[in-house]
């Protein structure tokens, strides 16, 4: 039996958020013994150097596949070369890696953070248009993620590009909330004191920040929501709590960032085992959930994306 079990070494970033925990869980349940796998899981505690060590360890253990959820996009050339020399295919999940030679990894599965940002901003454009505010002066606030994180870089990029493209949109403030509720709240409080009355839209780069920002906004006596005179809050990740707030209308749009990478990776491994070709890049499907049905579909770079109106059934039916 030992011969047909496939050994997979998985180097995970850590357990720094709910999202990550769901991601780990997805991997663990996919590569279980029942499914014919032997998973060697390593938690890097948010340190790239630990991941380098772990991969070298996997190589010594002569695993069949290495799955890597990189802490950073950079700095993988050397160790991936070692894996290649040892003949072990590497599958990257979540963040992309930035390597000089594409052949160093076999495939990538993950989210397109920039696209997430673009989608969200495209929705905002359509939403304001639909509300008849397309030509109004709109003031935006961006509560960024932890500076330097891939998700922050991509989502901020999407935000900046859209503001750039609209003459009537202005960025009032752009501060990092470090992906946490407490920081998000603290930063929002400070921003509200400076320009509370002018803010139209708050773009939070994850749900936790959105919760903090909403608390700060409400504590300062403003209302959140999509109507004129209210402060519109947008968010990412679609965690259970985030969608609950979307349902209650506090968050007007929540863009998904899908953590369930396990099945996708399994697909790739099965193909490889069968000697088939695999796609180099595989994006996971990511939806958008809005509080109301003002906008039901948007277009980014000529591709259409559907916007779902949130219901309790959807929340209950989700795995995370």
């Amino acid at each position, binding site marked *: 039996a030992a011969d047909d079990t496939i050994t997979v*070494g998985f180097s*995970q970033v850590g*357990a720094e958020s709910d999202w990550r925990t769901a991601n780990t869980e997805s991997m663990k349940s996919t590569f279980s013994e029942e499914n014919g796998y032997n998973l060697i899981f390593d938690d890097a505690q948010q340190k790239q*150097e630990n991941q*380098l060590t772990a991969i070298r360890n996997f190589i010594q253990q002569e695993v069949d596949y290495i799955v890597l959820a990189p*802490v950073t996009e*950079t700095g993988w050339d050397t160790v991936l*070369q070692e894996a290649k020399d040892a003949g072990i295919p590497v599958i990257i999940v979540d963040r992309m890696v930035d390597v*000089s030679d594409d052949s160093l990894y076999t495939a990538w599965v993950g989210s397109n953070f920039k696209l997430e940002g673009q989608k969200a901003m495209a929705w905002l454009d359509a939403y304001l248009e639909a509300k008849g505010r397309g030509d109004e002066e709109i003031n935006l606030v961006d509560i960024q993620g932890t500076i330097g994180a891939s998700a922050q*870089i991509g989502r901020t990029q999407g935000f900046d590009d859209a503001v750039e493209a609209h003459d009537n949109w202005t960025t009032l403030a752009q501060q990092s909330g470090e992906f946490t509720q407490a920081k998000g709240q603290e930063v929002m409080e400070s921003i509200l004191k400076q320009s509370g009355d002018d803010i139209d839209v708050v773009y939070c780069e994850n749900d936790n920040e959105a919760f903090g920002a909403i608390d700060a906004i409400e504590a300062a006596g403003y209302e959140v929501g999509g109507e004129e005179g209210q402060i519109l809050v947008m968010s990412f990740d679609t965690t259970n709590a985030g969608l609950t707030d979307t349902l209650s209308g506090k968050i007007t749009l929540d863009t998904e960032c899908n953590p369930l990478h396990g099945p996708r990776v399994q697909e790739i491994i099965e193909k490889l085992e069968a000697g088939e070709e695999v796609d180099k890049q595989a994006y996971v499907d990511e939806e958008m959930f809005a509080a109301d049905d003002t906008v039901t579909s948007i277009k980014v770079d000529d591709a259409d994306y559907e916007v779902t109106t949130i219901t309790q059934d959807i929340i209950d039916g989700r795995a995370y």
Partner: protein
Amino acid sequence: MKANGMQKKKMTGNGFLLLITIALFAVMYIAGMIIFADKGFAKPQMFLNLFVSNAGLLVIACGLTIVMITGGIDISVGSVTALVCMVLADLMENKGVNTYVAVLVALLIGVAFGVVQGFLVAYLDIQPFIVTLAGMFFGRGMTAIISTDMISIKNELFLKWANFRFYMPFGSTNKKGKFIPAYIPPTVVIAVIVVIIIAVLLKYRKFGRKLYAIGGNRQSALMMGLNVKRTMFQAYVLDGFLAGLGGFLFCLNSCAGFVEQAKGLEMDAISSAVIGGTLLSGGVGTPIGTLFGVLIKGTISSLITTQGTLSSWWVRIILSLLLCFFIVIQSVIASMKKKAK
């Protein structure tokens, strides 16, 4: 007669803790080799990987050992490492600066931190923890100011250094029966040389002995006519230089610069030094001990990775439990020894 007997006892007394540390390390490693024999733990490369992964940390921990011997501490090393990596990456990739120049600048950054921190600690007599805490803030902030993007180093010469391998005459055979020689990269060679140089410096140079005297009792060292301030200053400069060099080695391993890099490295370095027998209160410690401290920490992580079924939080807990176990055993043995005397 009596004097002779005493002499013998004292000689072992000095290196006793180090011996214990080394013995514990050996026991742990051999146990790992037996338990995880089928998972490649017994391969020589697995052992060398301890050095490969920790070359930068080793150099940095040596620097910390120096300041800890004087009774000080330096918690800025993680930030300095991040800054060094970022500067290297930024200079070579964005500014197109010559590789050698970039490395030189990086090393100078370490020295600059050493000079400023050393001045504040030695001449203005400000508490080292606070000075280097400020240094830690400063380094991390500066890294963000240089760039918040991740920068991959693609400089050819730099990558050549990073990918260079010294192959060993020994090695292991893989599943398919192919012989694979063990290797080490240049970083390991540099780190080991640094350890040796520092060991000699501390044992056989006036400067080194002054460090111990200052750590033992600063007031006494002053009264005995040692130039306490200058020596302390030099200790911090050397520590800064080693932090810079360590950062460079670290960068050779990761080939990238980004804000979050090497976070918490200072704690790894401090705990390595302490496991290796360095006292935070000063006056005691050797680079060789620190070397074993680094190896022990590396082995603990390596054991956990090899085991490979723990969930994220259990990794943290087990990691610190092993650390705890280790520190407690050390302390218990040390106090038993004291009692026996």
